[in-house]
């Protein structure tokens, strides 16, 4: 019931567009701004909560003066628009569209020229709008990685200590045994207290 209600509404929107084009409302202008919203990919990025649905899109003229909804195929139109420079904003949750400056020319019988205010790109008829980027509303949590852990200052310190534990004895081994003996002799003779004797101070 509800679904069929929505479906039967759509043609009505179209119908209103048609007959207002035929009979201009007095006071307002007589031109039409029509365009299409397109997105090459139907579904959003992974993690993007809002899939690209024309149902969610609104096109806003001159900061809320008028609002248009979009047909399933992406088309929209504002009719009864006076000549001048207008601003269109496309609102789609999860997607960023540049606001569009649209010049409706009175001399050229309502010819449209559009200008993306963000990228300064000019587009001419037929107007086709695409999102500039998809919006990722959440910061991505850094995935747990061993490398990341090791690169942190703590990780580096631990790494160095592990290295010291394993490599320093190896260094000792490489020393010539005679040399070693000589060094030990020297150490014994020297009056300065060695590190080892300090540690075992209690027992000696």
């Amino acid at each position, binding site marked *: 019931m509800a679904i069929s209600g929505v479906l*039967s509404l759509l*043609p*009505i929107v*179209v*119908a209103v*567009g*048609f*007959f207002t084009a*035929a*009979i201009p409302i007095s006071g307002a202008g007589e031109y039409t701004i029509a365009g299409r919203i397109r997105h090459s990919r139907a579904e959003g990025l992974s993690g*993007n*909560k*809002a899939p690209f649905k024309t149902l969610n899109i*609104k096109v*806003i*003229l*001159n*900061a*809320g*003066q008028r609002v248009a909804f979009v047909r399933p195929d992406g088309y929209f139109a504002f009719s009864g*628009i*006076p*000549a*001048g*420079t*207008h*601003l269109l*904003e496309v*609102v*789609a*949750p*999860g997607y*960023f569209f*540049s*606001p569009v*400056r649209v010049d409706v020319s009175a001399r050229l019988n309502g010819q449209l020229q559009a*200008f993306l*205010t*963000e990228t300064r790109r000019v587009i001419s008829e037929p107007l086709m709008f695409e999102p500039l980027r998809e*919006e*990722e*509303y*959440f*910061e991505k949590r850094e995935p747990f990685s061993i490398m990341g852990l090791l690169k942190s200052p703590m990780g580096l310190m631990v790494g160095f200590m592990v290295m010291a534990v394993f490599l320093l004895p190896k260094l000792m081994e490489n020393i010539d045994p005679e040399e070693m003996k000589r060094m030990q002799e020297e150490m014994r003779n020297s009056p300065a207290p060695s590190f080892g004797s300090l540690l*075992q101070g209690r*027992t000696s």
Partner: protein
Amino acid sequence: MLIVTSIDLHTESGKGKLLLILGDRHLLGVSSVDGALKWSIESKELSDNGEMNIKKIVQHDEKSIYGVGFLSLSGFVVWDIDAKTGHINSRDVITHHQELSMNDLIVTESSVISLDRDGKNIVWISLNQQVLQIASIERHIPDGKGRPHLMEEHAGNIFVLKFKNQISLVNLGSSNVPELIQSLQDHSIVSLGIALPGGDKHALSVIQQVSEDKINVHIFMEEGDKIKVSSELVGSDIQRGFVKKAYLNAYTRNDRSHGFRVLVVAEDSSLSLLQQGEMVWNREDGLASIIEASTAELPLEKEGVSVARVEHSLLEWLKGHWLKLKTALMVASVEEAAAVQALRLKSTDKTKMSRDHNGFRKLLVVLTKTGKLYTLHTGDGRIVWSSFISGFRRSGGKLTMLKLLPWQVPHKHAMHENPVFLVAAKVASEENKFGLLAWVDAYSGMEINSVRLTYFIEQIIPLPLTDGAEQRLHIIIDDHANAHLFPATDESLQIFLEHAQSTYFYMTDKEKGTITGFAVKGPQTASPLSPSDGVLFRSQQLWTIMFPSDTERIVTTATRRVDEVVHTQAKILTNQDVLYKYLNKNTLFVATIAPSGAEAFGETSPEENWLVVYIIDTITGRILYRLKHSGMCGPVHAVFSENWIVYHYFNVRAHRFEYSVIEMYDRNRIDNKNMLQFMLGKDNATATLSSYSHVDLDVKTQSYFFSHSIKALTVTSTARGITGKQILVGSVGDQILALDKRFFDPRRTAEPTQAEKEDGIIPLTDAIPILPQFYLSHAYRVEGLRGIITVPAGLESTSLVFAYGVDLFYTHTAPSRIYDSLTGEFNYALLLITIFALLIAIIISWILSERKELKEKWK
């Protein structure tokens, strides 16, 4: 006038609907399949004077429709129009010897019904026979009083006559005599008639308000010549006011009889579906029209409230635990799991009805357009209570809700009092206009008192003074610029008199383009206090600023929040310089635009647009600062906090939106004070600030582009004002965008020096960046966003944000990240594991060292 009806049409391509659109100059037939215009009839074709003579349209058969109208004053015209081509097949005129009432005309499937001019007789024609018939109303409905009117609602041959005292349902059956079905007194609402599926049965429902909380649903069903009447009494435990509208819907029961359900719109804009004498569901759609929102603290957790009292009884407590055990063992059914979920939700801290340590749990008190007050819990958004203010409903006349102000905030010695809110409304009718005040308890929704003032409310100003019971003093300004002090007690008068000499206020008249300042002059009369009208004070006009109406029009004003807390008056830079903020509470920001560059910025040129902003001292009327932006136009949104103002407008020349920021620093105080002296307390930061003293402002400004138009603009507020600020923007896509105040810093330069970088200056860009992570509402949309309020939480780092529109949205934000508590993501498990690992390592190494020592000793 635009009437749209639809009729079934059988075409070659199958069944479809034809939409008939009746306007002032055309009757159009539009296909519902592809929206194509099938045909149109101009009013010229129907009459000589060019007016649309067709008043009503009805389907005749599959191929044709009838258009019905009046012939001058005394007759009907019936056009037979081909539904496929719009060709007028025939035009029939039936005249009457008396004048007809032009406002009463209904067309049923088989007849056209009207009244004569005095409303004495029912005049009708049968569409098939086209014979005019008359019946006296008095004879058929003897107890109807006053001149009756035909109601638009009808079903089959049932139509409704509205009298002064009642409505009467009449059946114009095949007998060709109007037959009274039933007359209903009380407040009754008639629904549109519907055709029942299958067969030519019709039904209509009438909702009769029996009492405040009881309604009687009458359903009248026409079955052939018989009329079936059924009634059901439906009660409601929540006060919803009178029924405003009703919609009938039918369904077929298993036994092929017809069942009915009625959708009822109540006075508080809530929707309820009634079926078989019960309310099936209810939606509080009144919450879509919030005009003011405020918050109240929840009650303190009382000592001695034991588990048993919360869990009602031991049995329930046991049952709860048994269910929990079952779900833990995965043997619970779906319902049991849901019950456990509900229990858990109930017992979580988030939804408790008591104050929490961090001040996150609050009551949101909202005032809606319908005059109903709601209180929502911030934990889960549930409605704690909702009620109409009975004092307002009795007042009569068109009621406009004005304000919701915290009257009494539990504080200090009045800690155990309930918070009280002051609600203000005004009634403006042709004969008189007056204000209304009511005091409502925020915990129970009980109306403590309500008064009807003898004057009109122009403005309500909360004063920075409270009486012994922590009731805030308010002055109400009436339309003669008199001030009335509330509460009207001796105590508050004594408190106020001490400050009356230095009480000033100002009024803004947007139509005339003036801002006028007043001073309050001592109590006018020594008369006894009148508790219902306040204590009367006269005022004296001090100054007026008149904006030239041909070049400037006031669009927006902004002031600082009354309850704003500023942590420090000085801003210490890295190079040990001190900037003193200009923190005068009595400053007003005014934005004016060119009157010609009015609403639609699609048609204007930059030359005829400008935006002028002023900063005005509201005590002296002195203009402290003026800045003109050429080629800019509205709508202007502005927010004023501490010593800065951020405002948003449209740049017609660049065709982009822009933000500008103004920051004010007091140069008077800079006299050779550096940070050392400031730290030693040898500064003049504590000196009294007077509006009458010389002001030497150092104003810094900057402008930035912004991609989008906005709907609301506000700033976060924290308990002590230490935390940085975020500008909260209601975006065009109905999302809430939180922009760091540092983006708006006027001291931003293209290449900041090392010292400036240390001050947190961001390199200058021409536009304010919008990163998707800035959206507080993430992918959610707050449809129809109209306002955002911010409230400080107990934690200094956090500000509570409530946005309202058609949807409601509530969240927390921490502008400088959460620095005073652990965030929810904090990894407690890792912390515990680390502690354990360390403990074990200590024990093991201790054992090892003991052993080694023992070995050494044995050597």
